[in-house]
């Protein structure tokens, strides 16, 4: 009996142990399964993370390349800008030199215009010479008038001579011829005097108008030179 109990106990223990082992195995399997599932999830998550990180790395790599490319371009641009800046500096330097030169030339033009304005004195001198010429013309007019007066007197004298010759009759014939000849010469002298007077008047007009043209032209030139001088001074003051 005891043996039976012992066998039964052993069998019971064995069954219990078997059951316990079975329960344990089942539990272990479940735990293993749960652990496997979690691991798999973890692996999946890590795989996804890895893929994401790989994408990010690629993106960063691309961005890095872009930045390097941009950097290169910026370096090239900087070099070009530096070159351009040097050119601008050179141009500025040239412009400053040109400006100084222009200012100097403007000053020279203003000075020349000022100097040339003294030409007005020359025109005035010519005008004075015209006055001198016209004084000579007036003198010739007076002399011509005197000549004309003498000629008229000669005509009267020749007429008187003709009258006296007629009174003398045949004795005065020769004298009448001379008196007639003198009258003819006086008439020719009178014509010549009139012609000379006309020439003097024409000379007066052409002399006066010519010298007035010179005088007026001189004033025109002086006014133009004043304008040039003013413009040159304005230009010079703007450059400074």
């Amino acid at each position, binding site marked *: 009996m005891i043996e039976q109990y012992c066998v039964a106990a052993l069998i019971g223990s064995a069954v219990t142990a078997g059951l316990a082992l079975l329960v344990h195995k089942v539990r272990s399997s479940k735990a293993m399964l749960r652990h496997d599932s979690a691991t798999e999830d973890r692996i999946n998550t890590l795989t996804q993370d890895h893929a994401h990180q790989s994408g990010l790395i690629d993106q960063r790599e691309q961005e890095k390349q872009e930045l390097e490319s941009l950097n290169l371009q910026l370096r090239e641009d900087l070099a070009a800008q530096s070159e351009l800046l040097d050119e601008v500096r050179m141009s500025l330097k040239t412009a400053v030199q040109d400006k100084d030169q222009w200012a100097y030339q403007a000053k020279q033009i203003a000075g020349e215009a000022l100097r040339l304005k003294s030409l007005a004195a020359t025109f005035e001198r010519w*005008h004075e010479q015209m006055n001198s010429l*016209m004084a000579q013309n007036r003198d010739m007019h007076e002399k011509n008038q005197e000549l004309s007066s003498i000629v008229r007197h000669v005509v009267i004298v020749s007429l008187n001579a003709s009258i006296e010759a007629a009174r003398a009759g045949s004795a005065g014939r020769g004298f009448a011829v001379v008196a007639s000849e003198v009258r003819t010469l006086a008439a020719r002298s009178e014509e010549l005097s009139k012609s000379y*007077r*006309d020439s003097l*008047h*024409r000379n*007066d*007009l*052409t002399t*006066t*108008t010519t010298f*007035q*043209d010179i*005088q*007026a*032209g*001189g*004033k*025109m*030139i*002086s*006014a*133009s030179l004043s304008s040039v001088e003013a413009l040159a001074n304005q230009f010079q003051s703007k450059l400074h």
Partner: protein
Amino acid sequence: MISSHAKDSIERIFHKAAQARLLLDSGDVCEIVAIPQGVADAMSEGNVVVLTISSIVFRLLLILHFDEDASTREYFAKDAANGAFQEIFSEIANLCCGAMNQELLQYFPDLGMSTPYVLSARCVPHLSELKPDYLSSYAITINQAVRIAATVCVCAHQPVDFVADVSAIEESCGELELF
């Protein structure tokens, strides 16, 4: 050489200048009538005042014919001494020519004007010697008593064409050019 527009313009400019400068009082009446050149040439008595306006393209002569008769002397040089008449009339002619110069400056920027000079009226027929492209004479009567004459002579070196607008009201008395 001088277009018909330019000739009309010169005539209008002369009329305006004469009306403005030859009258000493605003109430005076001035009558300006064009006369044939032959009539002007025949006026051998008396003297003329000659003035020149020069430009690059032309020169213009203004010739004012005057007699020193009582009415003319009374009008222009009432209170002046006997010998001063020519000087006074020359100054009036200078003002008249100056007014023309001012008008012409609007169309020709480069102009210069001479000082007046008195010549015998017998010089006027010889204007043809200058080979003028425009020659016009006028009889001017002031207050139906004072009679003077004027001749405008233009010699052109290049074609002259402009249209003058003389309708503008004169603002100043012009520039008195000393001589």
